[in-house]
């Protein structure tokens, strides 16, 4: 199990609510799980100098990003008692209100999922080379910076 190849975490376009619902449904046969914790990143229609963000276009250094996602996965399983973990990130255009990041952790016990989920999300923000271009309604743009 140790030498698993990095999976492709990226999905083209937004992550749909049906996809998330299906992902939850798939875990109902895993009856050792007592707690799930899900983080969803959603694109905000921020207003910057009178212009409103209509979408974010995501690009990534994909090979490095998938390696980093894989390292984060492995480190998280080392640190926390998790039954399973899933990460999906959008590439390409995600409109305001749509979901661009889906992180899903499950464990027998709730204390583990809270700690693990926050850890995973902060690691993704800090270590994965993904770049968001905020496109305004008038088609001008600026580069997003995480805070």
């Amino acid at each position, binding site marked *: 199990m140790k030498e698993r190849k990095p999976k492709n975490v990226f999905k083209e376009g937004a992550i749909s609510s049906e996809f998330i619902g299906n992902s939850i449904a798939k875990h109902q046969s895993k009856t050792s799980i007592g707690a799930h914790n899900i983080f969803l990143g959603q694109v905000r229609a921020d207003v910057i100098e009178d212009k409103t963000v209509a979408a974010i276009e995501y690009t990534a250094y994909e090979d*490095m990003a998938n390696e980093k996602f894989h390292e984060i996965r492995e480190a998280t399983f080392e640190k926390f008692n998790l039954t399973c973990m899933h990460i999906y990130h959008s590439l390409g255009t995600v409109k305001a209100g749509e979901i661009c990041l889906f992180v899903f952790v499950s464990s027998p016990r709730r204390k583990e999922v809270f700690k693990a989920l926050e850890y995973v999300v902060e690691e993704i923000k800090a270590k994965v*080379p993904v770049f*968001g271009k905020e496109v305004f309604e008038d088609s001008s743009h600026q*580069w997003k910076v995480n805070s």
Partner: protein
Amino acid sequence: MLLNIKYFGMLAEITNCNEETHEFSKTSVNELLAELFRKYPELEAKDFKVAQNHEIVSNDSNITAPEIALLPPFSGG
């Protein structure tokens, strides 16, 4: 060594390309950056990190791999 240089995000806007080959005969990341800054003067004012073998390296590291990436601040999620 013939390097393959990749540019991402706002850096690709400056260089007007996502990747290019670059013949490099010196040693360090700093020396490579000096050459790239001569070619793209706007790059020098930008905040970015350099990755080699998919790992961030410091600017005084030696270039050992043919694929080098210039990465602006990450903004995933």
